[in-house]
């Protein structure tokens, strides 16, 4: 199958086949970034604009480095030092960037749908680097890629996504990715951050972590987004940690090889105890490394690159 999409906006838009192409291509780039010379000429002469209208560290750096590794010219724009502060609209900013012949716009924005909004108006490829609580597709790709590296085929594997589901773009993208790969998903969190309506997308919903913890093959923790919380959503961080924090006592009841995942940044001592964040089961830093390969793969495919032939074991992930 040939890659046909101009943009990467959401995992929910992708077919299972497209998802597998992205993961397979990522495997190739994972191999490239482990070489002594980590740079390839795939995007030479292309211009990549990191348009980050909402703060980010790891995603912005990861995209920037991925573009550089593909030999693209990279411009990074942040809201605080851009014409957004003068009231320029997103549309006008993007049209100006297009007038500069940008080939890729990587958008991080607080509003759901913002990446689609740009994609419909630009010839440049748009990559959604997080649109409010909607989706964060490259995060989901790096999460499932990492999980496949450790667990192999994800069909039938049980994932817990734990925490602030309501405001989480990571959860929304991961749910779709995991379901498309045949995994079982249980969302866990307080009732105020986890509406029952999520069941309608085909996942389980649970408000008692201890009940489901022993069944999990992977626990994907989400950051408690204190900046989005309102006073009515939960009483205190202390109570949240008591009810939903992953600590050593709870970890002892898990499968011994359970994966601990987190998109970062971590609130140590809140959603996860510090010792668990750094334990052998934690793949948090593997996720960051794989993020680089994922973003290289995405830009490579969107620029017209074709799926490389790779070995079957790399395709399915057998390093466990």
């Amino acid at each position: 199958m040939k890659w046909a999409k101009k943009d990467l906006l959401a995992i929910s838009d992708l077919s299972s086949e497209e998802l597998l192409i992205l993961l397979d291509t990522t495997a190739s780039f994972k191999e490239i970034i482990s070489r002594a010379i980590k740079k390839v000429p795939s995007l030479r002469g292309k211009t990549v604009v990191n348009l980050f209208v909402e703060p980010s560290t790891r995603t912005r750096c990861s995209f920037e480095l991925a573009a550089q590794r593909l030999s693209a010219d990279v411009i990074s724009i942040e809201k605080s030092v851009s014409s957004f502060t003068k009231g320029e609209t997103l549309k006008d900013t993007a049209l100006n960037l297009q007038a500069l012949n940008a080939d890729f716009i990587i958008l991080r924005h607080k509003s759901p749908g913002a990446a689609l909004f740009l994609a419909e108006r630009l010839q440049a490829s748009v990559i959604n680097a997080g649109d409010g609580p909607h989706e964060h597709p490259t995060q989901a790709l790096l999460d499932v890629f990492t999980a496949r590296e450790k667990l192999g085929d994800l069909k039938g594997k049980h994932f817990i996504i734990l925490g602030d589901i309501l405001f989480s773009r990571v959860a929304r993208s991961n749910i779709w990715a995991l379901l498309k790969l045949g995994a079982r998903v249980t969302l866990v969190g307080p009732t105020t951050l986890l509406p029952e309506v999520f069941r309608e997308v085909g996942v389980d919903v649970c408000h008692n972590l201890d009940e489901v913890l022993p069944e999990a093959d992977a626990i994907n923790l989400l950051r408690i987004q204190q900046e989005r919380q309102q006073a009515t959503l939960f009483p205190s961080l202390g109570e949240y940690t008591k009810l939903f924090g992953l600590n050593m006592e709870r970890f002892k009841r898990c499968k011994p090889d359970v994966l601990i995942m987190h998109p970062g940044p971590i609130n140590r001592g809140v959603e996860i105890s510090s010792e668990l964040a750094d334990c052998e089961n934690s793949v948090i830093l593997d996720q960051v490394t794989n993020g680089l390969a994922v973003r290289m793969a995405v830009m490579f495919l969107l620029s017209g690159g074709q799926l490389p032939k790779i070995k079957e074991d790399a395709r399915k992930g057998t390093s466990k």
Partner: protein
Amino acid sequence: MNALVLKGGRVIDPSQGVDEKRDLYICDSKVVRTLSEQPDVIDVSGKIVCPGLIDIHVHLREPGQGAKETIQTGSWSAAAGGFTSVVAMPNTNPVADGPDTIAWIKQRAAQLAVVNVFPTGCISKDMAGEFLSPIGQLKSAGVVAITDDGKCIQNNDLMRRALQYATMFDLPIMDHCQDADLSNGGVMNEGYWSTVLGLKGWPNIAEEIIVARNAMLAELTGAHIHCQHLSAAGSVRILRQAKARGIPISGEICAHHIVLTDECLKTYDSNFKMNPPLRTQADIDALIEGVGDGTIEYLASDHAPHCEFEKEVELDDAPFGILGLETEVGIYLKYLVHAKIISLHEMIRRMTIVASDLCGLHKGTLKVGSDADITVLDPDLEWTVDKHQFLSKARNTPFHEHQLKGRATMTIVGGKIVWSLENGLVSHS
């Protein structure tokens, strides 16, 4: 003398219980029994001739927001939709909370509008929900109702006092039913689609709780309260129960709320962003049932023009509201009359004499001696909405290229043809 006869049409005038094929005579600005001189003759055979339609819920944007719409262009839009009278909401800039602004609106309408424009005034000063506006002076200046449409009075005591106070002036109070805490930050219906799309939800309960409050306050004060643009199934249930108990309360729907669901937002198109938001099919079913059994008597548009550049932004930042005047009749004919929810006679009744009576407009009838405000309808005309053909200044409609059945073909105000489907805008002097 300006004599006109509408010949061969089916005249439906619910104010008189009339539904028969006959000619209608007009002399100067009035409906007359006979004509002594040679009239201009318009053949309306095969068409419906009814009292001029009335929309009790439109935004004409002046003063202050003339880039979106003006009283003049809004009146053109009304005429093109088959309306001869519109009730204009007061959330202008400045808001219509004093007699000077009302006088300005009336003067502007008298000079430039091709249909009758009836202004409303605010319930509270600056629409801030804190202090009563000068309702007596607003009445003297000519308002036909008071409302803080666009905002809902959150202070229950203020709402109670407003209801009590307005009874002195025989003015209806219209309320935009929205609890600000429960809907805080919401941009679409709270449910499956808001969850999937990651957009902040505006739950049904935010409307229903205010409808319930209003029913209780209407019962307490004995004053009539009119609940605007209802969207939620629970609102219909509460309204039905309240009316069964004899409480003086009424409800209104807007055309888009009986056709479109929140699923339309899946493309993040801001032309589907409105307040209250598009709900679910279950809500639509309840609203239609409410219209059918008479729980909801009023049919309106909530015509809310916005500039294209205002809507062409991220959905979170786009203003609420869509156009309504030029698609409203086609929607109600297709989804209420052709769908056999209500009869054509009943639809006309609600959009004429019933609407007139709510606001004391003294319109909505073809009785001899009444103002010759007349709408000619072709209920079977199939057409495709083309926003580029609108006479409104704005283009923010979710119904572009929508197939409808039935529309107005001529609008006559004060005995003058102001718009016809054949010739477009005929006169605006």
